C-alpha cells in the first residue's frame, strides 16, 4: 500500500498545556483510520494541524512523500479535504452553492486562478461545468433538493452537505471531524456508504468520532488518543478489547466516559 499521509512528532501547546505531544501517524491509500479518545484528548487539534488550520509547534508532515506546509488552501490543493466539528456552511446560500464551492475551488487557486474565476463569472455565471461532480456527490449523499437554503436544514442535513463539499474537492486524503454527530440514521447510512465508496477509489480517510461502534464498523485501524498522546494504534477489534481502551473509557482516570 502506498503511504499517502505521514506525520512525524506533531506537537501543539496552548500556553503551558500540551494539547498534542509528539503524535506520529501514517495513512495509506484506501485506508480508513479512526481517531478516538475522550474530550480534550487532542483529536480536533490533530485534524487542525494536518489541515493547517492551526500551525504545528513541532513535527513534520508529508503527503505522497512531499512536504505538506502552509495555509489550509495550499494543503487542499495538495489533495486534502476536511469537514468541521461544527458545520461551516454559508447559511444564506443554497445546498448547490455550498457544494459548488468544493467543486470549483481548484479552479480558483492563486491570484491567476482568482482573476480568471472573476472574469469567467461574468461570462459563465452558472458554474454548469461543475454539474457532473455536483450531481455525482449529491446523489451519493442523497442531498435531495439542491435549491434549499442551508440555513433551513437540520444539523444532520448540514453535515451531509459539508461531507458533500469535501467530496466535491475530489481529495486524496479526507479528514472527517465527527461527521455523524447530529445526523439521523439515514444520514449515518449515507455518510458511511460515501466513506466506503471513496475508500474503494483509493482515498485515505481519517475519521474522528465519539461513537466507538460506528467507528469500529467502518475503519481499518484505530488510533486512540489520550491527553495529546497516542496510547493505542492498531486493529479495531484489538483496540476495543485492549487495556488502554478499558482504561480510557471505563477506567477511573476521571476523564469523560462515553457510552
Amino acid at each position, binding site marked *: 500500500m502506498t503511504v499517502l499521509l505521514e506525520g512525524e512528532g506533531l506537537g501543539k501547546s496552548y500556553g503551558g498545556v500540551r494539547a498534542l505531544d509528539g503524535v506520529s501517524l501514517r495513512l495509506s491509500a484506501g485506508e480508513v483510520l479512526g481517531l478516538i479518545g475522550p474530550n480534550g484528548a487532542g483529536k480536533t487539534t490533530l485534524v487542525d494541524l494536518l489541515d493547517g488550520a492551526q500551525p504545528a509547534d513541532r513535527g513534520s508532515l508529508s503527503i505522497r512523500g512531499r512536504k505538506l506546509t502552509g*495555509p*489550509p488552501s495550499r494543503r487542499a490543493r495538495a489533495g486534502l479535504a476536511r469537514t468541521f466539528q461544527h458545520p461551516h456552511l*454559508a447559511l444564506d446560500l443554497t445546498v448547490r452553492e455550498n457544494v*459548488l464551492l468544493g467543486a470549483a*475551488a481548484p479552479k480558483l487557486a*492563486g*491570484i491567476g486562478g482568482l482573476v480568471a*474565476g472573476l472574469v469567467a*463569472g461574468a461570462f459563465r455565471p452558472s458554474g454548469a461545468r461543475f454539474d457532473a461532480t455536483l450531481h455525482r456527490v449529491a446523489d451519493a449523499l442523497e442531498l435531495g433538493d439542491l435549491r434549499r437554503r442551508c440555513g433551513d436544514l437540520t444539523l444532520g442535513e448540514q453535515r451531509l452537505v459539508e461531507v458533500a463539499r469535501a467530496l466535491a*474537492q475530489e481529495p486524496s486524503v479526507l479528514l472527517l471531524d465527527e461527521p455523524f454527530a447530529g445526523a439521523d440514521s439515514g444520514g449515518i447510512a449515507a455518510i458511511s456508504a460515501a466513506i466506503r465508496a471513496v475508500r474503494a477509489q483509493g482515498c485515505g480517510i481519517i475519521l474522528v468520532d465519539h461513537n466507538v461502534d460506528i467507528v469500529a464498523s467502518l475503519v481499518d485501524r484505530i488510533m486512540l488518543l489520550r491527553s495529546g498522546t497516542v496510547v493505542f494504534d492498531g486493529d479495531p477489534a484489538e483496540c476495543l478489547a485492549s487495556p488502554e481502551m478499558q482504561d480510557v473509557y471505563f477506567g477511573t482516570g476521571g476523564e469523560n466516559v462515553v457510552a
Partner: protein
Amino acid sequence: MSALPLQKAVGSVRSAESARILGTLVLTVAVIGWAGADLFRQDLALLGATYALLALGMYMPFNLAGALSLAYSAYVAIGGYSVGLVATKTGWPLPVAYLLGALASAALAVVLGFATRRLSGFYLAAVTLLFGMAFQSFLLDAKDVTGGAVGIGSIRPLTFFGSELDRQTFIALTLLIVWIVGVAVDRVRRSPFGVALQSSRDVPAAVEAAGVGVPALRLTVLGAGAAIASLGGGLFTTANQTIGPDTFTLHLVMLAIFMPLLGGQGSAWGAVLGAVLVVELTFNLQIFERSGSLIFGVAVLAVLLIAPGGIIGYAGQGARWLRGAATRTRGARR
C-alpha cells in the same frame, strides 16, 4: 420548423436571468431617453451613473465578502485625475486614462489590503479611511501634478474615430457602461467565484479548507472594486471636463455604504437602485433644499426597519406573495 428558433428565444427570455438583463437594459434606455437634451437631467443621470459605479465597486468586497474599504473617494479621484492628466499633458486617447486609472486604483487597493491582511476588518476600514483623508490633502498640496485647489480644467472630450462625442451621447454611453458593469457584477455574484466570496464572509475557514486562499480572494476583489469605482470617476470627469480635490470626498463613500442597503443587498442591482435613490433624495427634492442627507438618513432607517432586504428584496417578497396568492386562488376554484 420556422417556429423553433422563436420558441427557443421565448424560452430563454422567460428565464429569470434574461429577464433581469433585458429589464435593466430597458430601464437604462429609459433613463437615457428621460435625460435627453435637458442639462439638469443630464447632470442627475451622470451623477447617478457615477454613484452607481462607486456602489458597484464596493458591492463585491463589502456586501459580498464583508471587507469594508473606505478609500473609494481616492479611487474615484484617481480615475478622474488620470483623465485630467492624460487629457492635458499627453495626446493619448482618453480610454488609456480609464485603463491607467483603473490599474493604479486596483494596485493601491491591493497594497492597502495587503498591509492589513492579517488584521481584523476594522483595521482595513481604519487604514483606508486615513488613506482617503491623506489622499485629499495630497491632491491639494501636489500643485504641480494636480493643480492644487483649482484642480484640472479644460479637459478635452472623448473622441470616437476622430469626431468628438457631445455631452448627451457621452452620458448615454456612460449609462450603458453602468448597465454592462451591473450585469457583470451581478453575474459574478452568482458564479462560483461569487459563491466563494459570499462564503468567505460567513465561513472563511471553510473557504480556506476547500482550497481558495481567503487573503488572495479579498485582495482580488478589493482591486476589482477599486477599478470599477475609478472608471466612474474617469467618466464623470470626462463629461464635466474638470476635476478638483473637492469633487470626490469621503462624504461620497459614506453615502455609498448605504446605497446597496437601500436598494437591496441580494443583487448587484440593489447598489444601482440605491445610487439612483440617493441622487433623487439629495439633489432632486428641491422642496427640501439642503436637507437631502437628512432625508437620506431617515430613508435608510425606514428601509432597515420595514424591509431589511432593501427595496429589491421587498419587491421580490411581494412578487412571491402575489404568485402564491394566485396559486391559492386557482386551487380554491378547483
